[in-house]
Structures are given as C-alpha cells and as structure tokens.
C-alpha cells in the first residue's frame, strides 16, 4: 500500500498539497509545528493511491511518497 511521509517541521502551511489530492485526504493538522504553522498531514492513509501530486506541488520538499515495488 502506498505511503506518504510528511516532514512536518519543514511545512509552512501553504495548503497547496490539499488542493491537488485526487482523493482529498491531505488535510491541515490541528497541531502547530516548530515554525508555528499548521502542517499538512494525511489521516486516512489507506485511501492513498501514491500519485505523488502532493509531493510534486510542495514547494518545501516536505513530502516523501513510498510505493510497493512492482513484481
């Protein structure tokens, strides 16, 4: 199953990633990170399809996307 990892302390809360997710699972967290922003996060990771659109538009390289290796 694909997995998205957020380096939350790099996030500046611009919310661009929330607009491009085709499954609308990227949301802004309620907590506050070291910079003082609400970082982006994914609550329903099982819905992720690993398209990497969020990582593609992220200006601060916050997001890493992992996928199963094809056999």
């Amino acid at each position, binding site marked *: 199953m694909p997995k998205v990892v957020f380096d939350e302390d790099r996030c500046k809360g611009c919310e661009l990633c929330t607009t491009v997710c085709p499954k609308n699972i990227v949301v802004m967290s309620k907590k506050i990170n070291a910079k003082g922003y609400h970082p982006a996060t994914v609550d329903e990771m099982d819905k992720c399809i690993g398209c990497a659109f969020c990582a593609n538009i992220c200006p601060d390289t916050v997001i*890493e*996307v992992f996928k*199963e290796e094809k056999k």
Partner: protein
Amino acid sequence: MIKVAGRPESLQSKQFHYCPGCTHGIIHRLVAEVMDELGIREESIGVAPVGCSVLAYEYFNCDMHEAAHGRAPAVATGIKRVHPDKVVFTYQGDGDLASIGTAEIVHAAGRSEKITTIFVNNAIYGMTGGQMAPTTLIGQKATTSPYGRSVEAQGYPLKVSEMLATLTGAAYIARVSVHDPQHIRKAKAAIKKAFEYQIAGKGFTLVEVLSTCPTNWGLTPIEALKWLEENMLPYYPLGEYKTPEEVK
C-alpha cells in the same frame, strides 16, 4: 517499498527561506531532479542571482557561484569558457534578468553561449517589497504602481522568451508554468531538454518558468496559483519558442 517522490540528491537538506507557497521551491526541486536524472550533479556549476533566490547557492548540492545583480549570464559565460566540459546554468528572477540584466542575457544568447538559464517570472520584484517589474502585467497593482500599471505611464510588459527566440544564437527557448501538477511535469521536461541541449553543445538555452508571489500579490498561495492561471497565461502563452531543429 521504493521512494517515488521526495528531496532529490542535488538539493541540500537546508530549509528554504522562501515565503509559504512560493513556487521558487518547486522550481529548485525540478532543476535538482533533472540534475539527478542526467547524473550531472558532480559536473554542474550554477550561478545564483540577486533577488529572492540570492541564497540559491545554499540550496543546490552542486558547485555554485554568486553573481552581481543581473550579471549571472556574464559570470556563467566565463565559467563555461574556462570549463567547457562542465554543465553551467544560471537561475534568475524577472527583476534580475529582465530589468538590470537585460544586456547580459541578450548578448549571452546572441553569442550562443552554451549555458542554460532558468528564468523565474513572477511579474513583480519580490525581495525588495513588491515594486513594479518590467514583467508586471497591465493593470496589476504594485507598491510603485498603486493604481495598477498603465500603458501611458509605464508601457507594456516585456515578453522575454519571444524576444530571445528571435536571436539566431538561441538554441532552445521555452515558457512553462508550475500552477498545477500537470504543468509541473511539463516544466521539468522542458528543463531537462534545455540541459540535454547544452550538453549536446547546441547553444544558448533558456526556460522561462511562470511563478507566483503570494506575499506581494496580496493573495493566499492557492489564490495566487489561480491568479497566475487566469491573468499571466493569456499574456505569457506557454510553449517552446525555439528548438534546435531550427538551428542551421
């Protein structure tokens, strides 16, 4: 599990100083991803400009050089002529390239210097606080055009890609945008082509990337991408303005 997206090796782990939602970060990553894919990180020398991206030398994980305002193509010319086997690129904004550095970029293209320029056009001076740039659109408000840029007082915005594409020395000139994932992919493809043409010794290559400035446009990052799409794309049409096939 394999990593399909993340920070490329050609980008340092240092955090960008750019404002939230500034597309400079996306463009930095695209250039770094291209360097990774072509395997030229150890062979590349970048020239940083003056402007918001003045600290680009701290972000790219290759050899970097700082240039005086607008003079990056001149510095890159010197580096490329001394090290013709290296891949040399400049990273410049619109205040740097289209205003104070107009002479340098035109003559570097005219001389067909084998360098690649990444030209980030966000239609405003970002670092100095949102003054009108040569690329500011008609009617667009800036701190030095508070009622909007008018044709009578300030004339028309410069179309740099179209202008440089008329020069025989230019090998590859393209304009791309980064306002959605589809266009980000196209932007990366154009940057990759530019580097490949430089390596093949075709001549001067430039990729103009339409970018946003949420802070000085007075918009949220999401609104800024929409503003770019609705206002900048009609005046600055995307596409390849010159490709090496035309070079005789």
